[in-house]
């Protein structure tokens, strides 16, 4: 991996033409290790992120099925639970209460961070940023490589924590101290919590390395003509996401570091007046509320770090497959910027019931509800993009429409939760679980599926099977709503989250049928993912060969040849003359006009007349 092989990637786009010829001949010998393992190529790194995320998602999904079985049929014995959880955590097929909490915790952690942050941003930012802005690679291939290897290391540590004697971290994915700080409080707060903190610290490093790279690449390596206002919405979304990550993840790191100090060095940042294990602790003066503030200062932007890339991906896919320009391109950018900005001043809505000053609560009510406005604009703009379109139902398009639906369904309940007055009665109930799974979980995972189906040909040079994609989508959509919609009603009946079983409260006895229904749909949805996995891995090796521009799309990635060449374009970099959304533009024969086509005489760019 010589230095000269990468010199071109850092060059400014205007100068690249002179050196373009050098890129034609990249036959210097790359070994298997340098090409596929310690690769600095954004395309390879993107696929590494994707495959890792798929594996993590499968683990987290199996966990969810296990704890859903426990919730629907408490006390029932399932041989497969013992088979998976082992005799220690699943003796006689009964799930241990501590193991239940560990499953819930690690399921949340993996899904939020490893699948929907690392997996989603890592895969698509890496794949699409250089491709769609017309760059040879990321600004720093080396940092990009480090980003993946930190991610993999942290994934391995997180998964390995499942196999230790005391079990994995089990204080919920939000790991509020003192529960997470005191080994006496629960077995999961022993070594499991230490591993969780180490893993997350490495994850944050990975995220920061990736995020800085994305920002720098977008700002500096756009090809000629690629003005910020001509960038596809995917790139805008990745850009804002990366900014959010760079600003908020360091706060999580400090939050985790202080917890590490409290756990192992006797400090008392988060601890005060505690009596546990039969003795009073000497730590005093700290506040667990400090942790919550630090945690949610990341935690809320994190929601948008998860969601924005999915929204960017679907903007692109809905426009392409409606064969129409995205409606309100500038409003879409504006609303993403507004969401990004507001996401930093709303974290307190997770803390209305912590005893925080009620006045502070009212400020957060105000800022939180403001987010509904740009979100509503986005939803309406998506719907208007479909209007009078000529919708091509690729599996990617189906998942994009699924995203808009879940964004609406889950978004509206956010209005209830944002209201501190109403939060008093539904805080920490299943209503919350329903809300964030639909608006964040489903939307983001639908966006991720859409992205995989849409850009699979770019990633693996082959096509995924369409019919299996249809089947996957419809079962997933039905299963997903079947799982999460009824949970609202559990919340309205007052059922708290993170209960191992509800059967100790007779008042919840007649709600068991809701839990059975939910678990039934969860199992159905899990099987649908098997269809996806078969399609994914099969198509990777044996799918139909992909043509250069299968979806008749405008963006630059489809002007690259169907081969993974170093530097993406043989010869000169493409020059951009128009925005990415000239679909079905009058005056053009075809219903798409790639960004590289020069403007005709009297032709205006984008939304300008």
């Amino acid at each position: 991996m010589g230095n000269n092989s990468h010199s071109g990637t850092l060059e400014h786009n205007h100068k690249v033409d002179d050196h373009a010829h050098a890129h034609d001949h990249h036959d210097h010998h790359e070994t298997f290790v340098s090409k596929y393992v310690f690769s600095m190529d954004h395309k390879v790194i993107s696929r590494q992120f994707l495959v890792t995320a798929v594996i993590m998602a499968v683990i987290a999904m199996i966990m969810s099925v296990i704890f859903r079985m426990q919730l629907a049929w408490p006390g029932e014995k399932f041989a497969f639970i013992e088979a998976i959880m082992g005799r220690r955590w699943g003796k006689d097929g009964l799930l241990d209460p501590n193991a239940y909490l560990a499953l819930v915790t690690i399921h949340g952690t993996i899904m939020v961070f490893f699948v929907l942050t690392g997996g989603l941003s890592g895969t698509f930012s890496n794949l699409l940023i250089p491709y769609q802005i017309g760059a040879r690679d990321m600004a720093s291939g080396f940092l990009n490589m480090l980003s993946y290897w930190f991610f993999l290391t942290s994934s391995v540590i997180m998964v390995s924590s499942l196999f230790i004697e005391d079990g994995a971290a089990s204080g919920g994915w939000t790991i509020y101290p003192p529960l997470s700080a005191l080994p006496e409080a629960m077995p999961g707060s022993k070594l499991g919590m230490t591993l969780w903190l180490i893993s997350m610290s490495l994850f944050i490093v990975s995220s920061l390395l990736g995020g800085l790279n994305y920002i720098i690449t977008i700002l500096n390596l756009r090809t000629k003509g690629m003005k910020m206002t001509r960038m596809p919405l995917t790139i805008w979304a990745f850009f804002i996401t990366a900014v959010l990550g760079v600003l908020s993840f360091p706060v999580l790191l400090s939050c985790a570091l202080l917890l590490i100090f409290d756990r192992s060095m006797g400090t008392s940042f988060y601890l005060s007046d505690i009596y546990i294990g039969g003795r009073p602790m000497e730590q005093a003066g700290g506040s667990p509320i400090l942790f919550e503030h630090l945690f949610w200062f990341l935690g809320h932007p994190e929601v948008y770090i998860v969601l924005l890339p999915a929204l960017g991906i679907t903007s692109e896919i809905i426009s392409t497959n409606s064969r129409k320009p995205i409606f309100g391109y500038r409003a879409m950018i504006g609303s993403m910027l507004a969401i990004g900005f507001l996401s930093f001043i709303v974290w307190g809505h997770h803390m209305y019931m912590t005893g925080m000053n009620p006045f502070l609560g009212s400020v957060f009510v105000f800022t939180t509800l403001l987010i509904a406005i740009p979100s509503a604009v986005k939803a309406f703009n998506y719907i208007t993009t479909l209007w009078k379109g000529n919708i091509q139902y690729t599996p990617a398009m189906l998942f994009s429409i699924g995203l808009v639906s879940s964004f609406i369904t889950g978004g509206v309940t956010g209005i209830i939760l944002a209201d501190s007055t109403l939060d008093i009665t539904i805080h920490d109930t299943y209503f919350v679980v329903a809300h964030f799974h639909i608006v964040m979980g489903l939307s983001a995972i639908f966006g991720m599926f859409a992205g995989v189906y849409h850009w699979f040909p770019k990633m693996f040079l082959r096509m995924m099977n369409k019919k299996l994609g249809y089947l996957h989508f419809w079962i997933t959509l039905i299963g997903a709503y079947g799982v999460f919609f009824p949970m609202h009603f559990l919340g309205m009946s007052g059922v708290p989250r993170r209960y191992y079983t509800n059967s100790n409260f007779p008042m919840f006895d007649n709600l068991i049928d809701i839990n059975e229904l939910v678990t039934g749909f969860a199992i159905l949805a899990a099987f649908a993912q098997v269809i996806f996995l078969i399609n994914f891995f099969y198509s990777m090796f044996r799918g139909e060969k992909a043509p250069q521009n299968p979806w008749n799309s405008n963006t630059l990635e489809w002007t690259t040849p169907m081969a993974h060449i170093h530097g993406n374009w043989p010869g000169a970099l493409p020059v951009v003359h128009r925005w990415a959304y000239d679909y079905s533009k009058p005056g053009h024969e075809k219903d798409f006009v790639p960004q590289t086509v020069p403007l005709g005489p009297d032709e205006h760019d984008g939304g300008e007349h």
Partner: protein
Amino acid sequence: MTLLYIVAFLLLCIALNQLFKVVELSRDLKTEKEWRPRESDNRLNGRLMLIFMVAFMWFFVWQIYRFGGDRILPVSASEHGVKIDWLLNINYAIIIVVFVITSIFLFFFAWKYYGRDNHRATFYHHNNKLEMLWTVIPAIGLAFIIVFGLKYWNEIMARDNDPNPVKVELYVKQFDWTARYAGTDNKFGIDDYMQINGSNPVGLDTNDVACNDDILVKNEFHIPKGREVVFQFRSRDVIHSAYMPHFRAQMNCVPGQVTAFRFKPTITTAEMRKDPQVMRNINEINAIRTKRGEEAIEFDYVLLCNKICGASHYNMQMKIVVDEPKDYEAWIAKQAKFRAPKGAEEKKTAENIKK
């Protein structure tokens, strides 16, 4: 047996491999690309969108009918809770209208504009008026929600004005609750976690004479109807959350900190047991319990833990009884007072010591 599984698995793999080969060979013969959506695919998925819309709305209504009737929390047993419910219902009405209308538009357009061959979409990229419209309308709706939300929030969270409220402390540890009453002086004694021991389970400062008439109860606690109850919450170990769903009341219990919430109960336990919705719900519960061979239950208010706190988080309950004031007075008079260790009473009050 294991060997058999392995052989079966290998055979399955071979069979699948052969199947795939057949599919791939036939695929190569076709000129039409398998992955490209045809008009028939678009039509099928468009229709499925419409069918899904109908099914989705039906599922929504069915759930409201099936799960949203007698099972959801009954009428609020506290004064402020009635306001919360009123606001909650208005919010539900608003979001249901928005949810139904936008979902119908989404799935209807998804069906109406499915891709036809030889058809071209309309080039329509923005409309400032339209965008202004759907920025301003949500903004107005939200302004209403914010104003009412904050009005009630300030009322509910306002400091207590009642000169003589019932003071209850909920003290929590893994995994149970203790209620403490302020006693005849209606004043809580000072606490000190260093003094926790078997005879001083909630860590009262035995130097403070105000502790001596405090009353500690477990398993159930009583509050009077029609009087302001001011709760304070303390935790011994980790964060818990005191959730009293029937009173629309909740507050975290944070170690090292005292949190508070107040409400005025308006319905006694006996009255709530006669509420038609509660009776129907309890009958449904008892039918299930009888079938399972468990004893029938009566309605009771409960206090639950609503913040993950460890292995038995799911089983931290305390019964709440709302009495008529005279029954409450009779009950409280029977409760034993906290006994400070001998000699403590002669000491000065804690205020003097801490000065």
